[in-house]
């Protein structure tokens, strides 16, 4: 109850303050104008230059349109077919037009007055004079509000263009696309050319990239990396006992750190003196141990690669035996160390 009273009080204070302010501001404005009228001009009053003003306004409006174009391009195209050149050209044109507008404004609309003396320091009288100089130099402006509006529109559009890429940080409300995966129980593993993979053809000491049969290979969750280890060396987390038939393991090929493709396989020829086998991401050297469910053994990745359970059908082909052990790709706010909230 007391909280409510406080809120009401605060609102009332705010309303009162807002009503009072214009009055004060108006009074100050009037005082300043009177002062102006009283003082003698220092800078000669320049003739109004409507053409230059029009030009500046036109340039600013064009700059705003270019910045809006950037936002349009960014929103209209999907990331895969984003015309980067168009993005660069639009933002560069916008900034260039702003620079042009400022140059025209400075050269043709500001009355200039050259001072022969050194800059005065401790003379309040002369300081006021300088302030007056600066004020009078804008005397040629006839449509101050229009110019300010155009400048505001340009600034706003440019600011929004700068903020637009924030949208790419991910879906905000509906995060279900991040969990999408074409892998289902029974789906066959195929190689790059679409040939189904035979379990017997998977060798140790090397690695394979596989995709779900009949699905879009460009989808983030599609590519998997397949390796074969000696079954005696495999120590998978609890509950994954049947996930690696005959020692064949499958993990998402997308690194859980920054989403690069895990394209390196470290294979020891003589395990007694060489580092153990590992899947390595070439971007930042996140290193995963395939024998223990791709747990992170080095690098910046925060969680293991999601594992895909496998099974071998009657004809010896490899098939998925279920879904991934976790979400694919870099972590986001719904994912903490492999656990889904």
């Amino acid at each position: 109850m007391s909280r409510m009273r406080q809120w009401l009080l605060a609102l009332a204070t705010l309303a009162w303050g807002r009503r009072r302010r214009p009055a004060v501001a108006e009074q100050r404005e009037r005082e300043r104008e009177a002062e102006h009228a009283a003082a003698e001009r220092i800078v000669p009053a320049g003739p109004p230059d409507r053409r230059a003003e029009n030009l500046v306004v036109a340039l600013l409006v064009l700059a705003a349109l270019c910045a809006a174009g950037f936002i349009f391009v960014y929103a209209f195209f999907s990331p895969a077919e984003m015309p980067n050149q168009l993005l660069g050209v639009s933002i560069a044109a916008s900034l260039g037009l702003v620079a042009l507008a400022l140059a025209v404004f400075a050269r043709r609309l500001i009355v200039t007055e050259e001072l022969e003396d050194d800059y005065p320091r401790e003379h309040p009288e002369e300081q006021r004079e300088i302030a007056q100089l600066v004020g009078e130099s804008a005397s040629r402006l006839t449509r101050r509000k229009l110019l300010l509006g155009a400048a505001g529109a340009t600034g706003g559009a440019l600011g929004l263009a700068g903020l637009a890429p924030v949208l790419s940080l991910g879906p905000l409300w509906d995060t279900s696309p991040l969990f999408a995966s074409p892998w289902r129980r029974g789906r066959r593993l195929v190689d790059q050319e679409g040939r189904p993979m035979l379990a017997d053809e998977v060798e140790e000491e090397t690695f394979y990239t596989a995709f779900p049969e009949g699905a879009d290979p460009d989808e983030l969750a599609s590519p998997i990396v397949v390796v074969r280890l000696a079954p005696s060396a495999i120590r998978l987390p609890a509950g994954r006992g049947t996930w690696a038939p005959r020692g064949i393991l499958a993990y998402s090929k997308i690194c859980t750190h920054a989403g690069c493709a895990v394209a390196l396989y470290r294979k020891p020829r003589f395990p007694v003196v060489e580092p153990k086998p590992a899947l390595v991401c070439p971007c930042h050297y996140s290193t995963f141990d395939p024998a223990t469910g791709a747990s992170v053994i080095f690098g910046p990745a925060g969680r293991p690669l999601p594992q895909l359970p496998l099974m071998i059908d009657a004809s010896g082909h490899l098939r998925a035996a279920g879904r991934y052990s976790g979400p694919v790709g870099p972590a986001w706010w719904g994912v903490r160390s492999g656990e889904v909230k």
Partner: protein
Amino acid sequence: MRTALLATLTAVALLAGATLAAAQPQNGIVRPTYEPEQPSVRLGEELFNANCASCHGIGGQGIGKPRPGAGDVPGAGPSLRGVGALAADFYLRTGFMPLSDIHAEPSNRRVLFTGKEIRSLVEFVASLGPGPGIPHPDLAGARLNSGFELFTEDCAGCHQSLARGGFVTGARVPPLQGYDATEIAEAVRIGPYLMPRFSTSRISEAQLASIVKYVLSTNHPDNRGGWSIGNLGPIPEGLVAWLAAFALCVVCLGLGRRLRA
């Protein structure tokens, strides 16, 4: 007085060092006393027993757990039965073997055996059991552009697109310049040290020849624009661009100062 003492001590230390160095065998390779005319399995066996068996075991059967070998250097190594002429030829001709320390990453290209000795050792290792032979990539039918594509797909992740080498966790990735066609083909089939092995089901013989042709071409890359900057890729190129831009700014500033003065 003190300088004289110091000089004497230095001289004695130098002399002692020189004597010790002279007492060491040239490179640790033990050779039979006779010199046969032709490479032979017998010469290979003698060389193997004297120089390789402390790690690879008697008859190349391998030593699984490190144990004291010759000169109290712990010895351990994989079995050589069934590796064939392929592996022996690659490791000896590139100088990856013999290794001074079993925990060292085989890397340097110091070839300690003569050509005749290497051929003898290869014959001996091949005689230990049936294994793959030395590949002979057919460069006449190889295509440079498909070699480049295959190289970027399967090799460039570690070796960098112009085969200048790099790093993976736990190993150094060697640059591939200076190796001959046979050595490159052998490395792909063996997968030395931490490198994965690529069998014919992964990379066909024709594809391998194309890859070899591309790797050989990186010895003399076609540097468009004339300046290679070490062929290290976009990061050093960007660095050079920034430095050049910085230098240009400094020149412009200097000119501006001069004009104003």
